[in-house]
């Protein structure tokens, strides 16, 4: 998994230590800790994983093993407006793939990448449960249903 190098500021270190403490520094709570840390920082760069490992007293390789196992965790910062295209079966059958292609073309990024200006990142996810609205695209907090490939540009326009 590629990563970016960052330097944690003292208050961030404190924040992460605090989160670990909330879970009693219990290694069994690793996944909950990672969820909370990712919620706070947006992603889980190597430095954060090292800190979490040392707080929970487990090898950092184990933390990395967990981070790379679960698709929810990311070591790369997401864009300001993360775009998620539902790839559940219902959406797939109703043409989600074409929508993804269109977004890739419009933003010139691949799945899992962020645009150079940090504005958009693109990911696919499994069924969001809005199958009646298939295909579904989520941009930031906003959800778009019955998205047609032609309407992609128009939708993205909203966020520019």
């Amino acid at each position, binding site marked *: 998994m590629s990563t970016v190098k960052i330097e944690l500021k003292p208050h961030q270190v404190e924040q992460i230590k605090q989160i670990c403490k909330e879970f009693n520094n219990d290694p069994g709570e690793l996944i909950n800790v990672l969820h909370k840390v990712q919620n706070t920082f947006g992603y889980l760069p190597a430095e954060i994983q090292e800190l979490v490992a040392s707080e929970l007293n487990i090898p950092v390789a*184990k933390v990395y093993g967990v981070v790379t*196992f679960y698709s929810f965790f990311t070591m790369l910062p997401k864009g300001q407006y993360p775009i998620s295209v539902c790839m559940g079966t219902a959406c797939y059958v109703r043409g989600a793939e074409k929508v993804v292609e269109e977004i890739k073309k419009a933003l010139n990024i691949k799945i899992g990448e962020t645009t150079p200006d940090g504005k958009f990142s693109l990911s696919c996810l499994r069924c969001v449960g809005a199958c009646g609205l298939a295909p579904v695209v989520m941009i930031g907090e906003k959800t778009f249903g019955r998205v047609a490939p032609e309407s992609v540009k128009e939708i993205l326009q909203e966020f520019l």
Partner: protein
Amino acid sequence: MSTINITIDNKTLQVDKGTTILKAAQKAGIHIPTLCYMHLEDLNIEHKPAGCRICVVEVAGRRNLAPACATECTEGMVVNTHSLRVLNARKTVMELILSDHPTDCLICPKSGNCDLQSMAHQLGIRKIHYQGEQSTYREDTSPSIIRDMDKCIMCRRCETMCNEFQTVGVLSAVNRGFMAVVAPAFEQNLDHSPCTYCGQCVAVCPTGALTEVDHTNQLIRTLADPAKTVIVQTAPAVRAALGEEFGLPAGTLVTGKLVAALRRLGFHYVFDTDWAADLTIMEEGTELLDRLTRYLNGDKSVTLPILTSCCPAWVKFFEHQFPDLIDIPSSARSPQQMFGSVAKTYFAQMLGIDRKNLVVVSIMPCLAKKYECTRPEFAVDGNPDVDFSISTRELANLIKQSNIDFLSLPDEDFDNPMGESTGAGVIFGTTGGVIEAAVRTAYELYTKKPLPRIDFHELRGLDGIRQATIDFDGLKLNIGIAHGLGNARKLLEDIRAGKSNFHAIEIMACPGGCIGGGGQPLHHGNSTIIKARHKAIYLEDSNKPIRKSHENPYIQKVYQEFLGKPMSEKAHHLLHTIYFDRSKKSFVVTQE
């Protein structure tokens, strides 16, 4: 224990409840092939992830095939280990594994010694029907170990050794699915990790994914250099295992042939690390007595227990994991390094040559020794005390490359002055040996009386953690022994918690001590091999005319002529060392 009746391949037999199909079949003389499974019985290590699925068998009434390694027998179970369905599945799975594995067997360091290769042969694979993308990873080279994960088959044995047995925690399964692989954190190189280079991952790897850094070519070039005087030292455990590489049964001692072979390879002097082991006992034993006496006299600045420090993997382990305890281990260097520093001073002077023209090579059962040579504190002006180290396996290979018929070699003796050793030096090669050697000397130095007996059976054995109390003429010395870093961790945690009442502890990183080292001939999961080597070491000891380090005449000589006395300033300078806190995170971004 209740028993169970089962039928395997039409043979009926009774087994204890809890027996797996694999073990039951073995009992019936049926050897079901396995790949990821590993059971080092005498060392209490069992690894059965049931991941490779090579050992699948057909159990009547079951929906799918069952992995023999993990499935326990049940009453009335009927098992077929070679039905059409089983053989087809087994071959197909093997083909799948091979389809994600490079087929460069001809030039693979593991060729001829590879479990995957021999299993493919055993299963009669002649074509890989399923071809496709192969998973590839960045190759990683460290001072000791090469990781070529393209060859990883995800048996996860290394992960078990690194985590469960050694508790080092450097290796973990990372990623998911097809890209899953065993790697250090962030898929960084091992030298950015707390890896101890114990080499146990290499020792159990069934393929060429984990191998040692090979120094044989460097050795060949060095031996051919007319400007250099090349000397060699060979560790005690090597002589108890090298014969295996030439078809001798495990536990055959080949000391004399080893010396002869080294001479024929072209070394100018063939010395023995055992000599340096005797020297180590002089220093470490003296240090022990010094600390013990001061402690008993109420010196609050002295802490006990004293820990042995001859195992480089163990040293790196506590530097990373217990930096708060780095003042506890003995400051004595390992025999390899004592040998190197004495050779490049005392012996170089004796020869009248510059240390730069004296090349010290070591033959070690160990991969961490390769790393130990490179530690900067063991070099003078950039010239290392020990130039490089090769493993028992590399030596065997070199002997074969040099067309030496090992088995027909005569027995020869080591050279002097650094080749003479005692039985105490020999037993360094197995768990409990260092502390027994230390006791033999420390007892006589402390009590000023001759030892009533020389064999301390209470210190021997293969249990992971052992303890004994030795009576030093009224002073009860509590001794602890651990092999395997996981066991060491337990003792260290007690010390950290102030719960330890040991005076001295011996620690070896590898199972069984150096005889089970990461550089030894591969045991392929057969722990009786380690047991046999263990026995051989004690046999060598009992055959030695002198069995106490302080009685070694060449040790006495080196003190008289060069070092003065144990713990003298010169000895301190040449034979002792300091340790470093390595717990600081060393995350480095490795660019692809």
